[in-house]
């Protein structure tokens, strides 16, 4: 090759790199965020939040691609197939929510313990290791996609188990990073002070990290495979994540509304008792049809029917506290998202879960769009909302603890983002519920679940119409997310007033 060619390419690459750097600098100037307003622990937290928002965007983007394929099956066929889009959609969701939770914990850790984070350097390294690993996993999902039926595929490409598809090497990395996180939490509380919130948080993190290892083994026996797989999925999403949200909620109610510690901690213990009391054996509702013994029909049905109770308690707790404090809060968007969490969690996880949890109805609804309907409202209502509330808390402090109560400049943005995101997800939920009903009746009850029955239901006009509505409401959700990101980047930018003071009473 000619040396002039090489020089030419090098010059072009340098120019391109320079341009990218200029763009990044322009962006930084435009955003005008001043990190000196943040403590070191908060800086680490906002790193996690930033990646969480990027992955949130990826989640919705790939969700839209998969939703499009339900209407136009040839869209991206053979290039980015439904399986790939759907995998990125659900994995981006799990990972952004975990990033959000880790961010929330780092955010409240220094405040709650009354001291600086002990292993901050280690925490920063862990953040970059995790982010590098996530990037690599996503690139392999998109570019390699599948492998031969060998162990090497499961170790390096894709484990092929819904929600925990991450290849085994990444699993080990995730556990290592979680251990660093756990060390930081425990060591910081030990150096500073322990509290009820700290105790619940620590024990919950032990369970959360421990459960993940239950999903790291290959098993030929698919009944055993799915038995342990549900230990991870259910005991995360319907038990340990819920308790983690309870912890975050407890702390934020003290900060946002000035609720007394004694009240939030007592509530937290009640919630833990109800949540684990119903959720641990509620795991049985996943053991109806996977080959496991018949006693799970009774145990799973009974305990999962109790699962909505703690969620009712959480609604009462949040609404009552907000009411007694006359909704006086130093951060209106965050409080609005906390209230959205209380209701979203109750309806999405509680009501939508209960609707199809008893085995007598689940026999027909299991593995239909009914589950997708529940999944959309529950994940959004229970977990997206609380993370978004924390994004608003974080940006308020990042701007220098500015005013975010009545009369925020450009306040329409956060209100419209709130409306579009909640309305969009609710619309998708209803559309998928209609599809699920139709599938349960036609494919399951009438046609007896044969392949021909499956497609009879999929081709039915009411199913097809539901998929179009789902796409439409997906687009509304997407618009809400774009507005949310714009709002997070600009809210409080030119604000001079300091935040309203919230006193404990």
């Amino acid at each position, binding site marked *: 090759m000619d040396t002039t060619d090489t020089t030419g390419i090098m010059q072009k690459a340098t120019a391109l790199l320079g341009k990218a750097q200029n763009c990044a600098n322009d962006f930084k100037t435009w955003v005008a965020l001043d990190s000196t307003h943040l403590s070191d622990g908060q800086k680490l937290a906002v790193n996690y939040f930033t990646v969480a928002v990027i992955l949130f965007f990826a989640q919705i983007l790939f969700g839209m691609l998969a939703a499009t*394929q339900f209407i136009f*099956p040839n869209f991206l066929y*053979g290039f980015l197939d*439904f*399986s*790939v889009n*759907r*995998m990125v959609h659900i994995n981006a969701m799990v990972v952004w929510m975990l990033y959000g939770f880790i961010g929330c914990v780092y955010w409240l850790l220094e405040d709650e313990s009354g001291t600086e984070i002990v292993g901050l350097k280690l925490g920063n390294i862990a953040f970059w290791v995790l982010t590098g690993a996530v990037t690599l996993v996503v690139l392999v999902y998109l570019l390699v996609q*599948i492998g*031969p*039926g060998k162990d090497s595929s*499961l170790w390096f490409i*894709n484990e*092929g*188990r*819904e929600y925990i598809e991450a290849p085994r090497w990444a699993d080990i990395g995730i556990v290592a990073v979680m251990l660093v996180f756990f060390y930081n939490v425990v060591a910081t509380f030990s150096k500073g002070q322990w509290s009820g919130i700290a105790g*619940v948080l620590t024990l919950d993190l032990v369970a959360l990290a421990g459960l993940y290892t239950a999903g790291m083994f*290959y098993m030929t*026996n*698919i*009944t*055993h495979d*799915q*038995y342990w797989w549900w230990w991870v999925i259910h005991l995360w999403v319907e038990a340990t994540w819920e308790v983690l949200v309870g912890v975050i909620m407890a702390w934020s109610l003290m900060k946002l509304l000035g609720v007394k510690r*004694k009240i939030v*901690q007592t509530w937290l*213990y*009640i919630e*833990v*008792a109800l949540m*684990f009391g119903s959720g*641990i*054996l509620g*795991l049985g509702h*996943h053991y*109806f*049809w*996977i*080959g*496991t*013994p018949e*006693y*799970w*029909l009774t*145990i799973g049905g009974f305990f999962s029917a109790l699962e909505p109770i703690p969620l009712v308690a959480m609604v009462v707790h949040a609404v009552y506290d907000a009411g007694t404090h006359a909704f006086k809060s130093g951060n209106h968007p965050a409080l609005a998202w906390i209230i959205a969490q209380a209701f979203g969690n109750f309806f999405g996880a509680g009501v939508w879960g209960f609707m199809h949890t008893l085995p007598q109805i689940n*026999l*027909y609804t*299991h*593995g*239909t769009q009914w589950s997708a309907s529940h999944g959309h409202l529950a994940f959004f209502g229970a977990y997206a909302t609380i993370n978004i509330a924390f994004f608003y808390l974080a940006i308020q402090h990042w701007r220098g603890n500015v005013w975010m109560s009545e009369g925020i400049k450009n306040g329409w943005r956060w209100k419209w983002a709130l409306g579009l995101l909640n309305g969009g997800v609710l619309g998708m939920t209803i559309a998928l519920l209609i599809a699920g009903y139709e599938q349960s009746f036609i494919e*399951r009850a009438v046609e*007896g*679940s*044969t*392949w*021909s029955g499956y*497609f*009879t239901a*999929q*081709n039915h006009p009411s199913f097809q119409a539901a998929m179009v509505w789902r796409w439409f409401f997906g687009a509304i959700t997407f618009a809400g997310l774009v507005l949310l990101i714009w709002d997070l980047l600009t809210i409080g930018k030119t604000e001079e007033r300091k935040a309203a003071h919230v006193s404990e009473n």
Partner: protein
Amino acid sequence: MNETPLWASESFWKKTAIWVTAGSFIILVVLTFDSLSQTRAGGKRVPAYSVINKKIDYQYKEGLHKSMPVIGDTELLFGKAYTEAEAEQLVMLGKKTTQAKNCMNCHTLLGNGAYYAPDLTKAWLDKGWISTEMREDLMVQFLMNPEKNARTFGSNRRMPNLNITEAEAKGVVAFLKWMSSIDTNGFPYNFKTINAEE
């Protein structure tokens, strides 16, 4: 000073939370030991892998009000009688292939997965394979070359080509045959198999 009533006492609820959590978890662990032993391959609920040498059906039992797997006489797969070890090897290849090809993000297996393509729990027994004589060949051909042998049932949804080799395809068929013999407590309901008379 008012005394705090028990129901509003922080320490009472703390103890309750600990006891309820520990108690539930212990029950779960005990049930897990029992469930795993009842569902080991070769038990009553989950047959041994060599069940692929047998005829499998799924029939409605009036007294039980649900369908149950029925293991019949010899019906060899690919014309070969597999030992238990060989059968396990073949099913394992099939299971690993279903994971490496990410089947679960379009299909459901035992009802779990994604909802873009049909459930595979009783795929081996589906009427879509026309006759029991043609079934295994049709399945292998379909898996190896799904575009040319597309089975879209008028939906335009086609399975993409996943570069499945012949050995892998046979493994997947063996895995599906074995999975169809698992006692799934009557799921799916009202399923009419390829063996059922109209």
